[in-house]
């Protein structure tokens, strides 16, 4: 399944990355697939040198991914508020609240943490915070 409201948001993130030189610089060495799972629906975010080149929808056991962020749509909605409530302001806050899990190659996430956090925060402002 695909959340009709989520698809344009992810598309917008891809467009904004392309338009943001410092994100392309931060992500220059990041060429990985990230699994974003929302309400059990899978979104494979395929990055190449910092660009979000492909978004593949729907669970596919044949698609390898490096790390996964699993959450729910309500938590994501709160995460994307311009001034999120305590805990909803950060992906690790979602984890601490029990509203997200992160698994897979966590070190890869941490090595690229600023990049990942900034691209995930893009919907808060429709641009970069």
């Amino acid at each position, binding site marked *: 399944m695909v959340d009709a409201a989520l698809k344009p948001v992810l598309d917008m993130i891809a467009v904004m990355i392309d338009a943001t030189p410092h994100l392309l610089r931060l992500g220059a060495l990041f060429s990985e697939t990230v699994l974003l799972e929302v309400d059990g629906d899978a979104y494979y975010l395929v990055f190449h040198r910092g660009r979000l080149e492909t978004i593949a929808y729907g669970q596919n056991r044949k698609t390898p991914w490096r790390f996964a962020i699993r959450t729910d749509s309500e938590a994501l909605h709160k995460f994307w508020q*311009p001034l999120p409530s305590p805990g909803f302001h*950060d992906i690790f806050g979602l984890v601490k609240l029990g509203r997200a899990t992160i698994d897979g190659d966590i*070190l890869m996430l941490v*090595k690229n*943490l600023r990049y990942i956090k900034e691209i995930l925060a893009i919907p808060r402002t429709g641009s970069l*915070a």
Partner: protein
Amino acid sequence: MTHQIEAICGRYVTVEIAGRTQRIYFEEAGQGRPVLCLHTAGADTRQWRHILNDGEFTENNRIIAFDMPWHGKSLPPEGFETEEYLLTTEAYIATVLAIADALGLENPILAGCSMGGRIALQIAALHPGRFSGFIAIEASDFQPAWYDIDWFHRPDAHGGEMGAALVSANIAPHAPQAERWNTLWMFMQSGPGVFRGDLSFYTRDDSLVANISRIDTAIAPVHILCGEYDLTCTPEDATRTHQAIAGSTLEIMTELGHFPMSENPARFRPYFARALALVGASGT
């Protein structure tokens, strides 16, 4: 553009700590009751820049902050190149007391943030009478790490950049962008292995839990401050700690995180003023 020379004065003092010579950088401003300020893990004195530059605080208080050994402008000790930096409760206490003695502070207030708040409470418990009041900011008895501290010292990645990206989780979204990034820059600049060594103390040494009942607020008042956006020392952690210290006071700070004096100085200012007044210094 007009030029402005700040009131902050920086100097060095050489002290002996556990048999080792340490050249310590400190900054101060103002006159009156000494208020010794401790920075967080992985950072330095610059976290206190706004308090040090606040004329209303420095009018009646001598605000002092110093860089722990290995941090900021305080060099590591001789022989550091083959040493694994791991801060301990004993070394941390010895450092704070050595600075207070070297600077001849009389009836000082101790204000510490994060690991600085933790050690302030340890000193309140183990060295009653050395300070006349304690302001423990983002401080708790103990909480284990929600991350792997070894992430921050690796040959294949920049520990400072990873540390900054991680601790950004502890900054409230209300922080002005300039101060958010000033705050993170200190973590980016932290020496290799230093943040990890601080976190070893902060996330593994739970000795304050056993000592906390020894704190006597009749000897020196204890005020605890905690930002509502702090994921590391949460308001629940601070509340538990407050409840374990009879006579202590607590204020949860809205729209602030783990680095309140640095991430959003205007928002933090009234909380710090109340804290100073509560512990007997000159508030504003």
